């Protein structure tokens, strides 16, 4: 018999979105936060550059320009009602964090300092604007710490190093989750009136990625397996400046502070691709520009397969004060001194625009007509509101987690206050117990690591920055083979306590499911938009494709459907910078 717990609200994941949700939910109802990592290990802590809000502390700005930039940056696939809410609430969200103790950098008169960031402009694209609020180049670290500190202050209940592996539904609504306790190998059933998923991204389906090892899409995958569709999975962001070979993120803040991308000739090539804002163009455009340079023979290095991020012309004091971490990464991992030479970089798989479909109240919507699945919520990277559309602007992820994390916590707790617990069997863990027993009992066979490595290499080569029907078809077939091999994967560690071998194997299963949703959605979308670039369909096609994809996992394979984009005040225009 598994251990049983009962709460009003359970929040799965303790990064920025989960911790922000917990602050709202805990004061309204009995709340548990379940996280596979200690909260401060969450990948929010790796975010560097900042959080945009039109505070206008250093120059003229307003949230309507921010909304426009978000919509245009997302290549018009953004739901504009959601973007308006995010950009309007951004201002209070920043002040709110400041009041909690967030150590923002300051202007000489003691206000929150702001800097430039990719795609953020004044007067609807006339030039870059200083909108990003930041704490050196560790803004995510400081937000994560600040939110965790507040949860410590308020006595939030945490279940650390518990992996949520199943979602419980009953009578068409959320009823709880089942979690695996790393330290003991025991299962725990959490009955709840509301369940909030805030588990982050799934960049580990790619080889070169800025994402942590933990980012395997557990939340979206358990929802997907229980019948929730995945929205806009084909839109995955490749950040232009990953450390060469490793994919470790070097923040866009480097370019916000004046850094320049250069090819092997030393040319500042972005001027040819985005004459107005050059190196501060949105990420999808910069990543494609880098690959164009490489393909046309202007890549640097022995394999001519990278370009340089050059900050050597910046004031060394500015580098030390505002970009200390990323310069340290270049020194530590490549042995390069950024104050004197260019840093080798290449695009790196960074952020999932798609995920669990939600409305602006963070409620999960389970079909194309907006039907809410009562009691189920999602926020942050695992969710798709959609405020990022086809391409997220830099800094809008930290904003997203704070704004929609708060909304998720509030609405989940309010929902819980008005309903009873759903009826569940005495022990609803049967499916999961069978899965674990089957996995643990397999004879010596394939290694999960080998299957994962092939998945990652395949996804880089066939579902990355450049896609075609041929490549995607190959990847879809390859996923079939990988799935067969996954059926023979062997868990070598037979112990109960801290069995990370078993959990890595389960996580690989999640990645395979989500990769399949991504590839099938991408193959169907015969146009290019934002992060989804089809060489065989290089133009955006608003007539056919100004719509969100929904992908369901069914016994007969993946089923696709589409829903309209919410457009309020910005009609789609050509995207030029």
């Amino acid at each position, binding site marked *: 018999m598994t251990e049983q717990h009962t709460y009003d609200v359970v929040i799965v994941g303790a990064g920025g979105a989960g911790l922000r949700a917990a602050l709202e939910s805990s004061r309204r109802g009995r709340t548990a936060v379940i996280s596979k*990592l*200690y909260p401060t290990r969450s990948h929010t802590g790796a975010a560097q550059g900042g959080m945009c809000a039109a505070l206008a502390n250093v120059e003229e700005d307003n949230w309507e320009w921010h909304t426009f930039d978000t919509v245009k940056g997302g290549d018009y696939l953004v739901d504009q009602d959601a973007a308006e809410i995010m950009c309007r609430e951004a201002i209070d969200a920043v002040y709110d964090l400041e009041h909690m103790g967030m150590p923002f950098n300051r202007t000489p008169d003691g206000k929150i300092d702001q800097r430039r960031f990719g795609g953020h402009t004044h007067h609807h694209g006339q030039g870059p604007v200083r909108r990003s609020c930041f704490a050196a180049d560790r803004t995510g670290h400081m937000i994560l710490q600040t939110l965790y500190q507040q949860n410590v202050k308020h006595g939030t209940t945490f279940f650390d190093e518990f992996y949520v592996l199943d979602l419980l539904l009953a009578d068409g609504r959320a009823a709880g989750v089942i979690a695996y306790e790393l330290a003991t190998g025991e299962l725990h059933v959490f009955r709840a009136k509301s369940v909030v998923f805030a588990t982050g991204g799934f960049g580990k389906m790619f080889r070169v990625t800025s994402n942590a090892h933990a980012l395997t899409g557990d939340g979206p995958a358990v929802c997907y397996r229980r019948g929730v569709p995945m929205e806009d999975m084909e839109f995955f962001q490749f950040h232009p400046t990953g450390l060469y070979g490793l994919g470790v993120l070097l923040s866009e803040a480097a370019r916000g502070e004046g850094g320049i991308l250069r090819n092997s000739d030393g040319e500042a090539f972005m001027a040819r691709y985005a004459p107005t804002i050059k190196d501060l163009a949105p990420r999808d455009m910069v990543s494609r520009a880098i690959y164009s340079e490489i393909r046309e023979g202007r890549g640097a290095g022995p394999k001519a397969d990278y370009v340089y991020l050059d900050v050597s012309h910046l004031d060394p004091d500015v580098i030390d004060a505002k970009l200390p971490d990323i310069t340290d990464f270049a020194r530590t991992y490549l042995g390069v001194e950024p104050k004197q030479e260019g840093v080798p970089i290449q695009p790196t798989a960074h952020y999932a625009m798609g995920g669990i479909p939600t409305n602006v109240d963070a409620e999960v919507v389970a079909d194309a007509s907006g039907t809410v699945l009562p009691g189920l919520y999602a926020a942050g990277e695992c969710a798709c509101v959609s405020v990022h559309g086809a391409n997220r602007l830099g800094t809008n992820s930290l904003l997203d987690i704070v704004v929609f994390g708060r909304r998720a916590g509030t609405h989940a707790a309010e929902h819980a206050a008005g309903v009873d617990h759903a009826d569940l069997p005495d022990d609803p863990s049967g499916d999961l117990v069978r899965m674990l027993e089957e996995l643990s009992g397999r004879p010596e066979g394939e290694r999960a690591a080998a299957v994962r490595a092939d998945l990652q290499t395949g996804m880089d080569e066939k579902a990355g920055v450049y896609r075609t029907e041929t490549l995607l078809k190959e990847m879809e077939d390859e996923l079939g083979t990988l799935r067969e091999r996954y059926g023979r994967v062997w868990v070598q560690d037979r112990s109960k306590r801290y069995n990370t071998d078993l959990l890595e194997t389960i996580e690989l299963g999640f990645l395979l499911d989500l990769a399949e949703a991504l590839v099938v959605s991408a193959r169907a979308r015969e146009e290019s938009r934002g992060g989804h670039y089809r060489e065989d369909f290089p133009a955006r096609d608003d007539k056919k494709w100004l719509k969100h994809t929904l992908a369901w996992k069914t016994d007969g394979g993946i089923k696709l459907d589409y829903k309209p984009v919410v457009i309020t005040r910005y009609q789609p225009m050509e995207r030029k910078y």
Partner: protein
Amino acid sequence: MDVTLKVRRFNPETDSAPHYETYQVPANPMDRVLDLLHYVKWNIDGSLTFRRSCAHGVCGSDAMLINGANRLACKVLVRELGDQITVEALRGLPLAKDLVVDMEPFFRSYRSVLPHLINDEPAPDKERRQSPEERARYDDTTKCILCAACTTSCPVFWADEEYFGPAAIVNAHRFIFDSRDRGAAQRLEVLNDKEGVWRCRTTFNCTDACPRGIKVTQAIQEVKRALLFRKV
């Protein structure tokens, strides 16, 4: 090159005491120690157990004892260590399995120093003002990632697990010297405890161990001075 990787292993379900196992691992000088551990886990023995997540020194999961010093496995490269590398779990916290220790005593100390902003004055509509100089006063200690490398390198902590340890004091420092905070007196009372700052013997192990380059010993000295003069 090949690295001889020696790992102190312990499975609580089958072993009565820890023992060493040695692996030959192909490596290049720019590999991280974490890459070596992954090589073993993914190709030789799936039961080798350690924590890790971000793999570039910001999440604090993989602090361990590497060639006798507390380091993050993802932030120390083979070229710094040579071809003989020994990896053990952090000292001073209960050993759970292989390179995994029970972190709960560490986080308990952290929580006990009131590691959060204390200020009950009504907040303004916009931000509280703070000059760049006031902001710089506590900058160093905001870098802490709670990896426990400092605390578990401290000989006082090894001898007395009730001692708060450097990391908790660093996190108290972060607020004591924040111009917006009003809880210094409360926090200093906690740190004045017999298990508080006075147990520090300034051996500087903590400063050497910090993967974020925080001047840990200096921060502890500043807290001691604040206690002596009751002024921050």
